[in-house]
């Protein structure tokens, strides 16, 4: 993977002590980290470990009980996401960010053609030229390896892997700087997963997008990410460079996770 630009040494996203309680139930406690431009971080852990809660707090879908998320905007100003106005936050969400759902049906408009799905963000930011929107959509379908003659078909007619790739195209069309992925390869068979991972790895490094990938699949984490965070019971128990954590896990739980991978 390409090197990380630390020229200015300014993180893109800073999480400070993010905590979420669901009533008396703990969702996530005191998660803090920094993410730099072009860096891919994986969040791993078993079901119920707070991965998704963390991702939702970062992407402003749920409000943290404590802690804050700081984001460096394109103009260089650092903003606290929860003090921003709602329109500004939603604008950020559909221009500078992307969110890839595990289930493509959540992230796509199933009744709208592939071209319309990819073009939606462009139209949302005020693009009003049909020809240009369509050309951009066609270009993006090509980049995610969807045949261009399928541009007017709805995602209903697509296979699972194609849907997931379409969802990625739909998110990347506004050239975001940060993308959130919630189990992007869940529910896909192994060969389709491999192809999707190749694609993601290529795009992320080409476009120098920072990404936070939530996954329970350590293989995905190893292939995609520079850094890794291991969560258990709502807390981050180990964090570091991916290879370092996976090759030399310190925590007993991480050791268990690593050793539970079937040998290739």
């Amino acid at each position, binding site marked *: 993977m390409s090197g990380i630009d630390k020229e200015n040494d300014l993180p893109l996203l800073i999480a400070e002590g993010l905590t979420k309680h669901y009533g008396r139930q703990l969702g996530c406690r005191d998660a803090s980290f920094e993410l730099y431009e072009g860096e891919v971080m994986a969040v791993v852990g078993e079901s119920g470990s707070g991965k998704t809660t963390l991702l939702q707090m970062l992407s402003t879908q749920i409000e943290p009980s404590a802690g804050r998320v700081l984001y460096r905007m394109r103009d260089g100003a650092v903003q606290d996401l929860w003090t921003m106005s*709602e*329109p500004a936050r*939603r604008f950020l969400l559909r221009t500078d960010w992307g969110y890839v759902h595990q289930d493509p049906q959540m992230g796509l*408009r199933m009744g*709208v*053609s592939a*071209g*319309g799905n990819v*073009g*939606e*963000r462009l*139209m*949302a*930011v005020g693009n*009003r*030229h*049909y*020809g240009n*929107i*369509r050309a951009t959509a066609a270009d993006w379908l090509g980049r995610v390896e969807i045949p261009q003659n399928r*541009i*007017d078909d709805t995602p209903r007619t697509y296979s699972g892997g194609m849907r997931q790739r379409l969802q990625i195209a739909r998110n990347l069309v506004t050239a975001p700087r940060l993308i959130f992925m919630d189990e992007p390869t869940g529910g896909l068979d192994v060969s389709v997963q491999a192809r999707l991972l190749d694609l993601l790895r290529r795009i992320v490094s080409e476009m120098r997008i920072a990404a936070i990938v939530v996954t329970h699949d350590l293989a995905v984490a190893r292939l995609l990410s520079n850094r890794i965070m291991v969560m258990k019971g709502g807390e981050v128990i180990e964090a570091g460079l991916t290879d370092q954590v996976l090759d030399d896990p310190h925590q007993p739980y991480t050791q268990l996770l690593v050793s539970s991978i079937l040998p290739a």
Partner: protein
Amino acid sequence: MTAPVYNFAYLDEQTKRMIRRAILKAIAIPGYQVPFASREMPMPYGWGTGGVQVTAAILGPQDVLKVIDQGSDDTTNAVSIRKFFTRTAGVRTTTATLEATVIQTRHRVPETALNENQVLVYQVPIPEPLRFLEPRETETRRMHALSEYGLMHVKLYEDIARHGHIATAYAYPVQVDSRYVMDPSPIPKFDNPKLSNCAALQLFGAGREKRIYAIPPYTRVTSLDFDDHPFEPYRHDASCELCNATESYLDEVITDDEGHRMFVCSDTDFCEQRRAAGHGPVAARPQAEAAHD
């Protein structure tokens, strides 16, 4: 009391007050859908219960009422609503557009230009233009609040992708005063330009959906489109066979089961006025002409 006694124009005064408040708010925020406590009316939903309530709230004893349904003064819906107000309000009714002070309409805007002393009341089945794209009411309200209207263009995009042009022919979405996107009710898009800069006040009432919205006089209303696929009003390429009008919106009428058809003005009052002024039908046409295709 034993016999039912109706207030003037059927609704009681408190209800009218409530509706007038909603109307005032709607005029103050052009294109914004104001919720109101829609009443049961003595007619089924879909027959113009929203329009009837708005009309009842603004009607005064001096008003002259005209009711049109698809441009016509003499279809069931128009006749029954006219009768309803004749009976409950005793107001004078008319079919002439220029004589009326309140015009309740379903699916058309009259061809004759309206003036400042007139109010046009639309019957609206589904007030939310984003409804079929986004089913959640909470979400559509938020989208209106934040002017997030990209989705509306997705619909137009789909039209062009499927049909090669914007195929939406009625209820064509408009933006009022560069702010709210609004459903103009199911009028043909031919009528959309008439909404803009109109001298008359335009009120929209949706009874089942409990919403009132308005376009104040002389407000700019633009139809949404793409730079390379601009909005175009559609009209059959023909002239009216009764009055020979070439500018009016035409209805296609099937005249027999052998494929014969004729085009006539959809606005019956407009057509009658023209005929009274001496505009006649086109010279006799060869019978076979209409039978092809």
